[in-house]
């Protein structure tokens, strides 16, 4: 009896598995595949980004859809592995004819998705993958970056630190391609803007370092005026948590300081107050559209769109390109997106035609105790850095786009 029951269940499951794609295809929608790590260590990042894209799609659908069609999101768990993401995406292209993909986590995933997009002639856009090479020597016409990259973000932090007039700076970064690229770009811009500023320490530690004490001691001994770090996640948390009690009192200028998860997990605001960062989308960006967006998002969701805002704005930007193209034809959309400007919550974004790198302003934030968003410390608006101040000339990117 038991065995027979199991048999039926098995049959039912196989039926569902075979039929599911067919059933799902029924509705006349435009599908958008979102590759994010939806399991494992980086699940929380993937889920926050996905939430932002979802909110954009809900907003578009509530307003009558895109060119009269509803958008349907297909979450793809990339597991942060390039081969997994591109295999799953390839299946969606072949079986369901999906033409649009996006993602924000893991530049290696981005490189694989970019290649796939180019081969299958679909569109992939990113709102979070920042390796400069994606719009540099690996660029192609099917890949769009609706966010910053390590070059522009480091440039923006260099502009900010040069404005402050620091005489000496210590650098601490993760020992892999991302950390090294970020530091190289920072040093280049700093030398250009403020040649008299000395780099008194330049330290690289393995990503996922547990004990920062040996690095903190070297920073403290170098006596810098301020510290620059592209660290994120736990490598930022532990640098602050272990560094501050050991006498590392300097202001930290970081790639991702206004991360509510990092600040919340410190449990002690005094470790982070006064630190500064730049970001392409911030809650505190004082544009009229952003104030409306943040208020509406909070009303709908019950929390604030930190990070999620990046997925939201990029997806709205993509939708603008589709509207301008007037069709869902991939080639028409590529053409329409090139050179397109979009005035959204994060200011005016322009997609540069030559390398598909969005030119956008950076919003400067300082971490303060009292803020309207959280009980713990969070950001305060502290200025803006214009797109042209951090522009990387096309001939320096290494991008040669073939049509």
């Amino acid at each position: 009896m038991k065995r027979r029951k199991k048999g039926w269940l098995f049959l039912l499951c196989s039926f569902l598995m075979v039929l599911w794609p067919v059933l799902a295809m029924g509705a006349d929608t435009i599908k958008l595949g979102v590759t994010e790590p939806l399991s494992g260590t980086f699940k929380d990042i993937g889920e926050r980004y996905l939430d932002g894209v979802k909110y954009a799609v809900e907003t578009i659908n509530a307003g009558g859809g895109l060119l009269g069609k509803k958008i349907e999101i297909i979450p793809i768990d990339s597991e942060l592995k390039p081969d997994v993401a591109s295999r799953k995406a390839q299946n969606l292209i072949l079986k369901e004819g999906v033409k649009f993909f996006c993602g924000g986590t893991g530049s290696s995933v981005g490189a694989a998705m970019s290649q796939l997009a180019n081969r299958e002639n679909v569109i992939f856009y990113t709102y979070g993958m920042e390796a400069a090479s994606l719009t540099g020597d690996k660029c192609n016409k099917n890949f769009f970056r609706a966010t910053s990259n390590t070059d522009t973000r480091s440039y923006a932090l260099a502009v900010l630190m040069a404005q402050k007039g620091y005489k000496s700076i210590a650098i601490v970064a993760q020992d892999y391609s991302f950390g090294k690229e970020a530091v190289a770009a920072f040093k280049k811009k700093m030398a250009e803007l403020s040649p008299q500023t000395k780099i008194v320490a330049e330290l690289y530690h393995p990503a996922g370092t547990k004990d920062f004490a040996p690095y903190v001691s070297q920073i403290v001994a170098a006596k810098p005026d301020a510290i620059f770090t592209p660290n994120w996640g736990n490598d930022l948390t532990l640098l602050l948590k272990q560094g501050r009690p050991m006498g590392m009192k300097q202001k930290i200028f970081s790639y991702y300081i206004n991360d509510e998860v990092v600040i919340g997990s410190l449990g002690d605001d005094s470790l982070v107050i006064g630190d500064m960062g730049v970001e392409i989308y911030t809650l505190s960006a004082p544009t009229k559209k952003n104030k409306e967006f943040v208020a509406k998002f909070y009303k709908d969701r019950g929390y604030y769109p930190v990070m999620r805002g990046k997925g939201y704005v990029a997806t709205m930007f993509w939708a603008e390109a589709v509207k301008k193209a007037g069709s869902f034809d991939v080639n028409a959309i590529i053409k329409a997106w090139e050179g397109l400007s979009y005035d959204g919550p994060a200011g005016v974004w322009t997609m540069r035609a030559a390398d598909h790198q969005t030119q956008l302003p950076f919003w400067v934030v300082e971490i303060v105790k009292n803020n309207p968003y959280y009980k713990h410390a969070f950001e305060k608006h502290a200025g803006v850095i214009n797109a042209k101040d951090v522009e990387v000339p096309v001939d320096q990117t290494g991008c040669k786009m073939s049509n």
Partner: protein
Amino acid sequence: MSEFLVFFLHGLAYAGLLFLVSAGLTLVFGMMNVLNFAHAAMYMLGAYFSYTLMLHTQGQLWLSIIVCPIALFIIGALIERFLLRRVHAYGHVSELLLTFGLAYIITELVKWYWGNYPLALNIGGFLGETIQFLGLSYPVYRIFVFACGALVAIILAVILQKTRLGIIIRAAVNDNEMVDALGVNVPLVFMGVFAFGAALSGFAGVIAGPLLSTYPGMANDILVDAFVVIVVGGFGSLAGAVIASLIIGELQSFGALLFPKLSIALVYLLMVVVLILKPSGLFGEEQ
């Protein structure tokens, strides 16, 4: 000179932590011949239990130090009695797979209950302060971590070498049929050893939580380090774990200062060198 001393201290503190994490693992392997993949997951449980406890008691670390190892002792005993003992007859591969599966289940349960993001855990009182010496500020907690590691090492050595219980445990490892025949309840001894290993991992979690932060990936992140320690020290050797922890702790600390370009690979280089020179590890028994 004072710079040397500071980096030496950094190394000691981290060595203390490494030893705490690897002690239970190497003990269980040495006594029971079980490579417990769930060890790091139990360490994680210890840290999360401690978080919840400290949340409700305004940061009383002392309470966590007592309660969490006991909780893990009970969990360890149940795992040994109802799971591990049943697969024991089927050999090492089954035991390995069982602990592997347990590691996944525990990790996912933790994420499900406590959420998939890092938690804020701070030490109040004297342990949270910094002391000044040699013109430097040094956190008291780092000294405390080393002291805990040293204390556990001494207690373990005394139990195993000087007490009747230690004699029975060591005898059960050598020839458990003989010990059984002498009227000792060998399955009970093994259950006790496994549970004690679990309690040690829970203790390590309590101590590590405030220093390394309490987050869902903490089990995976520490597992590799613990394995490196017991490979270098020799599988199952407590003395080996002590020495290997000290070497690795100091190597990481001075490596960051003297060979920054190599610091990412230094520990693994050490492991390779040791394995080439003495494949059974520094204090391991030759097969």
